[in-house]
């Protein structure tokens, strides 16, 4: 019974979120204009809203801007900054540049993957909480190995240290709710 009530409330929440995001998309397009040169900034802002670029939203952007959907898709797939797959609430980037690699980024990565339950090539967890990616250099080699969670940088990571950080993250989240 309790379960039922919960999902319904969640559905309601989700609708509000969908609606707000879609309104934001329109606001972004209106603000940045419909010229072709506005496409990249628009995609950047829209991705900030959705954390990725959903296909139907890209189609919508193409329609609204009078561009061919294929060319919007082309731009969205050209730049590594854009993702067409949903991303988790927490995007964890593990640097695997030379400095980080030699100082042990691999065990850190394994520790994270194990903790959030990601296997094989999967990057995002089923519940859309975590996305785990490796990147080539975060430009903070002095702190190697480096991990970035959303906008926050964590230096000199070890498997133990990252677990502590994730513990804190989850604890903070539980308190928020």
């Amino acid at each position, binding site marked *: 019974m309790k379960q039922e009530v919960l*999902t*319904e409330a969640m*559905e*309601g929440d*989700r*609708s509000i979120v*969908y*609606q707000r995001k*879609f*309104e934001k998309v*329109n606001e972004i397009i209106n603000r940045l204009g419909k010229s072709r040169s506005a496409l990249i900034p628009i995609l950047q802002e829209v991705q900030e809203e959705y954390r990725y670029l*959903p*296909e*139907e*939203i*890209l*189609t*919508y952007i*193409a*329609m*609204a801007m*009078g*561009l*061919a*959907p*294929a*060319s*919007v*898709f*082309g731009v969205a*797939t*050209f730049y590594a900054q854009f993702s067409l797959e949903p991303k988790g609430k927490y995007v964890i980037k593990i640097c695997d540049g030379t400095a980080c690699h030699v100082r042990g980024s691999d065990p850190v990565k394994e520790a994270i993957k194990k903790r959030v339950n990601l296997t094989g090539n999967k990057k995002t967890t089923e519940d859309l909480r975590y996305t785990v990616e490796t990147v080539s250099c975060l430009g903070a080699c002095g702190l190697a190995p480096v991990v970035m969670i959303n906008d926050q940088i964590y230096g000199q990571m070890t498997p133990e240290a990252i677990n502590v950080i994730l513990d804190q993250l989850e604890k903070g989240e539980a308190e928020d709710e």
Partner: protein
Amino acid sequence: MEQKNTVLIDNQVVELNGEKNILELTRKIGIELPTFCYHSELSLYGACRMCVVEIEGRGIMASCSTPPTPGMKILTNSPRVQRVRRTVLELLLANHERECTTCDRNGSCKLQELANRFGVKKIRFGERDIKLPLDQSSPSIVRDPNKCILCGDCVRMCSEVQGIGALDFTGRGSKATVAPAFNKQLSEVECVNCGQCSAVCPTGALVVKDETDKAWAAINNPEKMVVVQVAPAVRVALGEEFGLPAGEIVTGKVVSALKRLGFDKVFDTCITADLTVIEETNEFISRLQQGEKLPQFTSCCPAWVKFAEHNEAEFLKNLSSCRSPQQMFGSLIKKHWAADLGKKPEDIIVVSIMPCTAKKFEASLPHFSTDGVQDVDLVLTTQELARMIREAGLVFEQLDIESFDTPFGFTSGAGVLFGATGGVAEAVLRAAHEFVTGEPIDQINFEEVRGFKHLKEAKVEIAGQEIKVAVVHGLGNAKALLNKIKEGKADYHIIEVMACPGGCIGGAGQPISPSMETKKKRAKGIYNADKLSQLRKSQDNPVVTKFYDQWLEKPNSEQAHEALHTAYANRGRIIGEDIQLLTSKQPDKVDIAVCVGTCCYLKGSYDTLKKFMTQADEAKVREKINLHATFCLEGCEQSPSIKVNNEIINGVTPDQAETVFKEKILTKLKED
């Protein structure tokens, strides 16, 4: 030293005359530099690096995208140039599936030709291990990404010449491909099946779908009578496949070849082109008299029709309702001729030989059928017919000359004109005056609508009224003209649109030839065939008159409409998911879709959508509503459109939104 307006190419002094690039200059002095991505009709891309030359002081440069400047010293075949070229080819081949023997373009592939020409005998790099799936979804073309060399010719053709942009680059680096939006299949996007992308593809990455097997199966089926129709443009191009010059009229040989291949009856599509002229001209005259649905657009090009269905909803009512000559032919055979022979539609197989890939798509449309049997069963392109002739071992030059069978074999010159851009307009002009005034027109030739200009215009006086005619070829040109009309900067009474540059003679099913010259020669062939015809006007064709007496009563009659006309419907641009906004889990929910496709969006459907959301909040019914934005409800003429449960409601402008919400949506919620 005196600075002259010359350059030195391979130690030869060459004068500059405003050439835009070195490539053009070398061609003028008889050097054919290899290219993949250079096409005079397309924009410069400079990506393939095949056309390199060595310039003193500047090193290796792409000749297609380097303008010549006075005093330049250029080498086109130096050891360095040779080495670079070979490496480029080797790298392309390393990334390319090398199954030449089974490739459709074996023998006509540019990559193969250049590898051979530059003596690439060994490829030092391994083969690519990833194999991407083929796209066979389109009835007209097959896309094999494994053979793509990323020259971008198709991308530019589709967007620049056709104004569509169904294909584009995706990804980058080693993962780059050319694909439709979201890696969808071609049949799921706004591709119009014109095939022009395959006509410029230098390799086998985009090819015309080969259906010769089906033709052999039909011929070898003893239970069926197999009837074949030949489109006008085929007769001036097929010869090229067998070494004859472009534009040579080979009608008699085509007929003879088809008979020897085993077709039971060989007919001419030009006869239903004559019929099209009569139906379309009468339709035009009645619109003119009633002053409605003008300009009238021609409808014999299925790629143009599909383009209009995707993008030009407001003009759909302006399209002539006439089916294309191919479909009129199929329809008459299956509905009337079969019956006269005491046969059922399924006893006869109708095959078409067309210059066109879009006709394959057209023939597959479900509404072009009789008692559940398709009117045209199979469409082969000129290329495919050539393949069958070769397979059968027929020596083309030695074939006899034979004439078409009766009754669908007697045609006028006007019918033949359908093969070239401007031809339909000219044929209609030959008829319109006579239909209005009862007096035949003296003028037969309308030079203004001939030729390859992007937009051709003519003015003709009929019974004191000036009729303005426009002719465009290439859908990009059509799009530009339509925009002018929308802005009120142009107005015409009748407009001919052909999707392919040059008209059907430039169709993608024709022998592959990149040059405009070839197309011009084919057009000349068409006009010669017209000149040589006994009859020049469609309305003089006695067999067509007989068709009316026997089967169709009179032009635009009920019978004629049943057999020869059709209707059009909007199509969304792309097949995909909706945007979910409110999701209700309740069993008695109301489902509302608001169209945000191009037309509806422009008419403010987003604001309608927003009003619905506010209304839902005010009435406190959010949980009972499923609200989503969708991409085409196919009601574009009276946009914005919405769909409430299964009912489509048109014209829901933002002002109407509140009323519609209260009357159509809230009432539904109360009902339950």
